[in-house]
Each structure stands twice: as structure tokens, then as C-alpha cells.
């Protein structure tokens, strides 16, 4: 299998604080990978480095889009990285609250369209068609995510679960190769989490995505992920299949502390 993302020896310092230290991460084309670790382990920091919000102190991030040549991502601006095919959601939902649901997704199409100022003012047929295409595509995505009834509602008026789904829809609109989900199940009840579980695996198949997700819900992670990376204090402490990670002594130590017996297992709680 081919890799889609390869992160080598990534470090991130905030002043004297080392938030990430020599993190290696690779994600294969079409897989669902998960990034777990206790609070403050540096998971979101890693996401922010990958998407260009932070400039990493050291290390390389390379994206391998299929059929084209690889691109180094560090040093690029956030919007350039999004255009290369990396889309993300945020831990604390960051929708455009004052815009309608449809418009939120239409904004996601921004990097796949090109109408400029003159196009906007004179609205030639190309712009007109592009605009139609944006609306059509956005609506299709919303239909897929089960939000077709709410297209004209303001994003901030949506219930919590729908906001989470809208954020994913907006990310999908950018035609990503790799989708980064930052705690998609946070604040959801067990039933919603179950729905999310099947939604994510369905997404991966239908859009031929690779997905990297941060999640604290171990059941969801163990169900979905083919590959799990565990971070603690900015360092990778384990990686492997759910089975391997579940029984890894370092992981058990990080999550449950030193004193636990040898048969303690993650994911039973």
C-alpha cells in the first residue's frame, strides 16, 4: 500500500516548552488511522502542525497525492495546504455561525473554484456555471450527511450533533485526500457515537479518503482504526493495530498509571 502522508521527526517548541518531540507518523492511502493519548499529549498540536496553523520547529511533513509528485507541507500557508488536499475539523466546533448551512459548505468549495472580483461583478457564464456547480455539489454533500432539511438555517442554530456533521460536510467540500477529524465524537451520546462510527467508515469508502482522527472514545477508535498512534508528553509511545496498542505496556501506563496490574486493558471502560 502507498503512503499518503509521511511525517518525519517532527518537533514543535513553544518557547521553552517542547510540545512535540521527534514524532514520526505515516498514513497509508485509504486507511483510517487514529491518534490517541491522554489530555495534553500534543495531539491537537500535531494536527495544527500538519495543517499549517503552527510552523513546526523541526522535521518534515510530506504529502503524497496519488498520481502527482509529493509535496512538502511544512512552510506552506494554511490555505495552500487545504488546497493540496488536507481538510480538517476542529475540536471545538468552528463553523461560520452567521452563515447558512449551505453557505458553510459552499465556502468549503472556495479552493476548488476560481471566480475573482471581476467575475463576481460581471458574472460571465463561466462564473455563473461555477456558482451553480458549487451549489449543486454542496447540496449533494449535505444530502449525504443528512442535513438537506436544514440548508437554509443559520449554522449557529443547529443542534450540536448536526453542527459536528456540518463541520465534516464543510471539510468534505474541499475535495480532500486526507481528512483530519479532531475529536468528532466529543460531547455525543452513545447512539450518536454509533452513528458517527458507521458514517466515518462509510465516508472513507464513498469519497476514497484517508482519515486520521483524534478521539478519546476508545470503542470508536478500536472499531474504526486500522492503525493507531499513541502520544504522551509529545512523544510517540506506541503504534500498531488496535490489538497491539491495547496491550502495549507503555500505553497502559500512560492511561492508567504505573500501579495497575498486568492484565489491565484499555478500552474496557
Amino acid at each position, binding site marked *: 500500500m502507498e503512503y499518503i502522508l509521511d511525517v518525519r521527526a517532527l518537533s514543535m517548541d513553544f518557547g521553552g516548552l517542547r510540545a512535540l518531540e521527534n514524532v514520526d507518523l505515516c498514513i497509508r492511502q485509504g486507511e483510517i488511522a487514529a491518534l490517541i493519548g491522554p489530555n495534553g499529549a500534543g495531539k491537537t498540536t500535531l494536527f495544527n502542525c500538519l495543517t499549517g496553523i503552527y510552523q513546526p520547529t523541526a522535521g518534515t511533513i510530506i504529502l503524497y497525492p496519488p498520481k502527482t509528485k509529493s509535496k512538502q507541507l511544512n512552510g506552506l500557508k494554511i490555505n495552500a495546504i*487545504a488546497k493540496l488536499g488536507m481538510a480538517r475539523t476542529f475540536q471545538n466546533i468552528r463553523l461560520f455561525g452567521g452563515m*447558512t448551512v449551505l453557505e458553510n459548505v459552499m465556502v468549503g468549495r472556495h479552493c476548488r473554484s476560481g471566480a475573482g472580483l471581476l467575475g*463576481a461583478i460581471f458574472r460571465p457564464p463561466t462564473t455563473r456555471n461555477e456558482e451553480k456547480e458549487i451549489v449543486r455539489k454542496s*447540496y449533494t454533500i449535505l444530502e449525504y450527511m443528512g442535513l438537506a432539511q436544514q*440548508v437554509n438555517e443559520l449554522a449557529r442554530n443547529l443542534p450540536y450533533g448536526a453542527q459536528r456533521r456540518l463541520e465534516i460536510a464543510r471539510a468534505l467540500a474541499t475535495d480532500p485526500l486526507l481528512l483530519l477529524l479532531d475529536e468528532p465524537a466529543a460531547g455525543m451520546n452513545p447512539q450518536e457515537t454509533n452513528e458517527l462510527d458507521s458514517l466515518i467508515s462509510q465516508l472513507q469508502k464513498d469519497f476514497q479518503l484517508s482519515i486520521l482522527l483524534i478521539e478519546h472514545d476508545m470503542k470508536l477508535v478500536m472499531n474504526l482504526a486500522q492503525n493507531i498512534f499513541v502520544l504522551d508528553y509529545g512523544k510517540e509511545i506506541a503504534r500498531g493495530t488496535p490489538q497491539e496498542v491495547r496491550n502495549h505496556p507503555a500505553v497502559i501506563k500512560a492511561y492508567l498509571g504505573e500501579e495497575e496490574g498486568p492484565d489491565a486493558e484499555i478500552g474496557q471502560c
Partner: protein
Amino acid sequence: MAFWDDHPSKKSKSVFHMKFTEEIKRSIYVALWLMLLTFPIIVIKVNTIDNVIIWRWSNIAGIGLASFLLSFFWQLYLRKKAPEKGVAMEKESFFRRLLENPKIYRPALIIIASCALVFPFIASHYQINVMTTALIYIMLGLGLNIEVGLAGLLDLGYVAFYAVGAYSYALLNYHFGLGFWILLPAGALLAALFGILVGLPVLRLSGDYLAIVTLAFAEILRLVLENWNDFSFGPSGISNIPRPGLFGIPLTPEQSAVYLYFILIALCLLTIFVIYRLQHSRIGRAWVAMREDELACQAMGIDKTKAKLAAFALGATWAGMAGVLFAAKTTFINPASFTFLESAMILAIVVLGGMGSILGVITAALAIILLPEYLRVFSDYRMILFGAALILVMIFRPGGLMAEKRRQYQFHHTDIEDKT
């Protein structure tokens, strides 16, 4: 909605038992407060000739009684209105429906258009001048609306772009003898360049910081214009700026006022058209997204730098045009016309009208410029009335007179049709 809506309706039963005690209590507080506040000016009168103080106690009794009664009836009105929240909402959407109903707004538009056409031929010279000023402010308001309303860039120095436009016309005309029709686009272009120049250093800033820096830029520009005598003729300004020409036909001041009025009507229509188109375009959406969440909009692939600079440049373009027209209208400019108060006025227009709402900004511009002119009777209290109006609008309509409404789309199975 407004603050009194927070009272849950179940409370109203117990309130009803108390009859009017709550209202009376509140009204007494209001009356006492107002009596205390107005005491120095209403009661004390110093007779400087005899060096005695006259205590006019009867006045304060009048104030107390009047404010008590007013407050009491106001409270009653509020209480009556409170349980009818649903009705109030209904009314608002009813007004919206009126605006959106083609049977209503088409004739309304025709009436407004014909009034605008006939107006200069029936109104006096003074009236036309007032209306022209109002139209200039409409342009300024709509231009600032791009920056503040759409892109969320709080610009307190908008008047700087206005000054750039006005001075480009005045100076280029003075030195090179260029005419109005060449300098109108030139002034707009120079202002746009100045907008980019201001935009570049403040790209990283947003919110309060941006407001302060833009304010500083405008003050710097004003001080430069005031002090650089060789360049801008300092505080004495530039006079004898020509009015716009009409194919070399000589016009009397009255005729040229009418001419300028029509130029402004045309330019306002152009502004409305362009801003409407921009609002409902890819760029407009990018601006609004940037206003809503700067980080998320970048993560969607929007180039923040480009979007911000475009907003600054376009906003400045309209200020530049308005500046040229202002110089052509008054035929005299000096730095005193471009103070912070002017920026605040334009910002008040945008905020009052409703950020991002074209119709709102137009209404607010007309209200803010025309009302003080026609309320000259109350000229002593103008600022008090102005302040009170601002507070009232912000309490009752926090989104502005006509809050921005997002475009609605309708979908039928396969074909897609959008409806505004």
C-alpha cells in the same frame, strides 16, 4: 430579542397579583435618578449680576412627575408586550415579507425612483445639497460595509480613504488641470492603492487592534495634510475646485447641483449593484467566512491575505470616489473635513443600518444625515437625540435597523434554483 423577553411567562401570574407595584417602584427610581441628574442645570441658576443663586424647585418637581409618568407607561407597555413575543416575531417577518413580495416592492421601487427623479426639479437648492450629501454618505456607508459588515475588519480610519479621494481630485486638478471625469476613477484608484498600503501592515491584526491602528493611520494622514503646507496647503485647504463639467456647457451653481445629484444617484446605483453582486459571490462568501472565523476560513482554503487586501482596496475605492464627489460638491476642502468624527459617523451608519445589509445602510445613511438637517429646531439637543436613537436601536434591534439576511436557496429534486 430585547431584554425583557427573558422574563418567563409563568412569572407573569405572580407579577399580575402585585398589580403595578413593580412598575411604580421602578418608575420612582427612574424619576429620582433623573431628578438627581438634571438637578444642576434645571434647579440651580446663577445670576452673575447680583451674584445670587436662584433655586428653581418647581422645575425639578415637573421633571420628576413627567419622568415618573413616562417611565410608568413605558413599563406598562413593556409588560403588555412581553407575553406577546410570538406576535412581535410575526410582525418582523411580516415586514420582511412585505419587502420580499414583488407586488409590494416593485411599485415601491418605482415610486422611490420617480421621487428621486423629480426631486431636484421641485426642491430648493438647499434641499438638493442636503440630499447630495446624504447620497455621498450612502456611498461611504456601503463602502465601509464591505470592510466592517462583510469582512469584519473594524476600520476606524475610513475617513482617510475619503480624504485621499478628495485631495487627489483637488491636487491633481490644481497642478495638472485634469477634469472631474478623469479624476473620478483616478481618485478611486489612488484610494484603493492607499487601502492596500494600509492593509499590508495590518494583515496580522484583527478586532480592537486593527481598529486602533486604522484610527492612527487616519490621524497621521490628517496631520500630514494639516502640516505639509507645500503639498496640501495646510489648514487653509484648497479652494476653487471645479464642479463636474458637462461637455463644456457652463452651468450655474443651481444647475450643477442638480447635475451632481444625478451623478451621485447613478454612482449610488452602481455601488449597490457591485456590492450586491460581490455579496453573493465566491469572494463575498470568503469575506463573511473570514468575519465569522478567521482560522476556519483559512482551513477551507481561503487566502486570508488576499481576502483582507481585497476588502480594504474595495472599501477604499468607494471612499475615494465619494471623496472626489465631496470635493466637487463643496469646491473647497481642508483637513478639518476629515476628522475622526467623520469616521465615527460612517461607522454609526453601518452599525445602525445593520452590518452587511445594503438596504439597512442606505436607510441609516438617509436617517443620520437627513434627520439632523430637518430637525434643526432641536439643534441644541441634536447630539442627545442622536445618542438616544443609537442606544434605542441597539437595544431593540441589535442587528441594526435591517439586519443582514442570508440568501435562501430552494431545491427541487434535481434542478437547482436559487431564490433571493
